[in-house]
């Protein structure tokens, strides 16, 4: 079973390991190109090294005047969050997901016990983490040999290890929450809350409010404290391994003590009828979306208000720093609070794009699980059903865009009145344009290659993010840079939204969605 798990998780582990390694390489090599002189580097360090706002948001930046220090500052949080989500999704899928689908019962009817089976899956997941570490390490070591980076093998391996630890920890978290939640979605949601709380604790710890000790209460804080390449603290590996081993142990024990299919947190198995929204397929879709709307709404609102709040201080330091070069590459020309918000809204644009792909993934799941048959065998047209889902998705994306603008304005308003509500509302709607485009392209894929919907959708978002990330620090020519959908939108509110570009993206999205609807109406319904 360990081998089966490893084979299942290996492709994505290697893929993300390579992506993390590319992050290291691009960040390190481009730094040397942008900050050529020591004076440039000192200026960068002076601007951001002691900035409390950026420290709270992205983590401390102790040695920005070195390639190594900049690289760690630049990538660690992004990698930690992606790795954490990947680890969580992989373990909840292979544990609670398999249990949901009934495969677990088949496995347990063989010569094994629930404890052994869980342990075997955990071993396979551990193998996946090792594969991710090896892939990252290979690229980190290779990059370290370049004269610009000049990092020895051992520190490069330690860097890769620090980048893989969040994935490792959150595989443990996912294994544990798989014992708590009765469905995979629930298990993943519990894990998501742990990741969010972990980030919030780390942020408070780094906010310069005298609560730095909180860093030791946060799993992400432990990863931050590893401090590769700058001032390594391998002692932080102890809580990481201890926490993960404890979660793994608890998962094995709890799996052995509960019934297959049961969970520690019991859902009510019966309830009185709540018929609100159950008048058709669109009402049902809205009802099923409510937890998703609540989760993403909370996340977007929190990020929006946080970015707005720190924008004033960050904008002030940005005005004096050479980071303007990077911001300008990302489209946020100018300086100050608006430039900072311009780049910050990119983060929200990425979140909205993930929401868009998530909507199509849910649509595909309806088909794969044969719930769609219940509608299509009744007087419901295929195009009507899919168009309804798309209308809900577009409304949701627009609402999230507006919410992000309002919340960012509220955050800004605490410190300053430098940016008006209409400006930030326009910035919020601006980030919905690439999300609508991605939604349309994902619909097109769903229309003719439904099983590839998720991989193409998430791949497009990841590619756009990677290109934007690498391009932002000057490592790409504009032809490749232009393939990023995020690069096609203006970095509002740094500059006003480009209505033409946004309209093109929306039009491409709508055209692709229409084509997807037509293709869907003509193809076979395909189960999972």
């Amino acid at each position, binding site marked *: 079973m360990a081998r089966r798990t490893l084979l299942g998780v290996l492709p994505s582990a290697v893929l993300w390991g390579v992506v993390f390694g590319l992050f290291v390489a691009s960040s390190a090599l481009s730094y040397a190109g942008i900050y050529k002189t020591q004076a440039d580097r000192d200026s960068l360090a002076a601007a951001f090294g002691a900035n409390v706002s950026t420290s709270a948001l992205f983590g401390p930046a102790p040695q920005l005047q070195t390639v190594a220090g900049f690289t760690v500052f630049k990538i660690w949080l992004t990698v930690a969050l992606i790795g954490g989500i990947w680890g969580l999704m992989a373990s909840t899928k292979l544990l609670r997901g398999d249990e949901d689908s009934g495969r677990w019962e088949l496995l347990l009817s063989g010569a094994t016990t629930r404890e052994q089976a869980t342990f075997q899956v955990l071993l396979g997941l551990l193998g996946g983490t090792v594969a991710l570490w090896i892939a990252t390490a290979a690229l980190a070591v290779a990059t370290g040999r370049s004269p610009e980076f000049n990092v020895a093998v051992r520190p490069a391996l330690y860097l890769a290890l620090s980048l893989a630890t969040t994935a490792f920890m959150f595989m443990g978290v996912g294994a544990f929450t798989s014992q708590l939640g009765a*469905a995979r979605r629930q298990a993943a949601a519990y894990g998501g809350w742990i990741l969010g709380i972990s980030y919030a604790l780390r942020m408070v710890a780094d906010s310069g409010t005298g609560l730095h000790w909180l860093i030791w209460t946060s799993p992400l804080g432990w990863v931050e404290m590893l401090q590769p390449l700058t001032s390594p603290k391998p002692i932080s590996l102890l809580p990481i391994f201890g926490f993960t081993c404890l979660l793994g142990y608890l998962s094995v024990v709890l799996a052995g003590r509960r019934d297959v299919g049961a969970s520690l947190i019991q859902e009510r198995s019966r309830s009185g009828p*709540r018929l609100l929204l159950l008048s058709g397929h669109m009402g049902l879709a809205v009802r099923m979306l409510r937890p998703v709307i609540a989760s993403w709404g909370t996340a977007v609102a929190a990020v929006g208000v946080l970015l707005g709040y720190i924008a004033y201080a960050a904008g002030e330091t940005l005005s004096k720093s050479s980071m303007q070069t990077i911001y300008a590459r990302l489209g946020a020309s100018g300086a100050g609070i608006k430039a900072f918000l311009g780049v910050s809204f990119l983060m929200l644009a990425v979140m909205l794009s993930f929401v868009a792909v998530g909507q199509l993934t849910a649509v595909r799941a309806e088909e794969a699980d044969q719930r769609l048959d219940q509608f299509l065998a009744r007087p*419901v047209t295929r195009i009507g059903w899919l168009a309804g889902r798309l209308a809900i998705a577009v409304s949701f994306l627009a609402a999230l865009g507006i919410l992000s603008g309002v919340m960012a304005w509220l955050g800004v308003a605490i410190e300053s009145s430098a940016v008006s509500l209409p400006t930030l509302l326009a910035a919020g709607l601006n980030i919905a344009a690439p999300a609508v485009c991605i939604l349309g392209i994902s619909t097109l894929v769903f229309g003719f290659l439904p099983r590839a919907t998720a991989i193409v959708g998430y791949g497009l978002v990841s590619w756009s993010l990677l290109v934007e990330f690498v391009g932002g620090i000057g490592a790409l020519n504009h032809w490749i840079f232009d393939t990023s959908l995020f690069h096609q939108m203006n970095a509002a509110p740094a500059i006003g939204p480009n209505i033409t570009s946004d309209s093109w993206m929306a039009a491409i999205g709508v055209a692709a969605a229409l084509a997807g609807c037509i293709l869907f109406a003509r193809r076979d319904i395909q189960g999972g």
Partner: protein
Amino acid sequence: MTEAAIRTEGLSKFYGSVRALNDLSMEVTAGEVFGFLGPNGAGKTTTIRLLLGLIRPSAGKAEIFGLDSCSEPVEAHRRLSYVPAEAGLWPSLTGEETLHLLGKVNGHVDEVYRDQLVKRFELDSSRKIRAYSRGNRQKVILIAALMSRPDLMIFDEPTSGLDPLMEHEFRNCVSEARQRGQTVFLSSHILSEVEALCDRVAILRNGRLVEIGTLEEMRHLSALKMEITFAKDIPDLSAVPGVATLQSAGRTVSLQLTGPVKPLLEALAASEITELVSREPSLEELFLSLYGEGQLPKASGAHA
């Protein structure tokens, strides 16, 4: 002229080189209960999904009450309901919420009959789908199909997961539907169910229709089973035309007879017989005779 509830002409579905269904032409008359049999992989579910327009035919066409399944699915679906072998439902909804939703989507529900069905199938509709056993999920989908009293009900292994009491209840519901003039298309592996309910039966094999007709019409395909007990010596019957699988135990002979009975009676005329038992094959025996021995009847009778 009686209206056709289902009509297929040359209906075919190919997946690359695999012929899941090949040139199916048949007609189900409105008001009849029609059994659809075949081993696993014969093409039964493929046929049903083609009838519902969930998949597109590679060739031929399917009609529901004269409406093309592909081009007029919504109009066709207004007159039918469908029960799959294993229903995909929404785990967080209760049974009652699911029935309410599916009723709203259907557009018309006999609410009194729905409540009766809930009682008859002993469904606790306040429980969430996630908490239901497979059999209870199947009850939800059966009630959802029956409660709108459609003109045509298409069942694909409808009683899988149901206990014998509920299977019996299902048979009662189908009988009532027949009395009301509803058409039932029943794909099932439970041959006794088909035998008890169906007016006509079609049998598929390897994607081809190999037999269609009433049970009476189909019984001629299988041998008559006979047991003959003689008072004295047993005559040699091996040369009698149509006689096969002769077995003797003491003074009793078991045999199978195909074709006319007259040659056998002539061979027995000189013997003193104390007991002669003859019975027609059950549907199960008929089915096994078609598949168990690898015989493939001629397709001449395969078009109704």
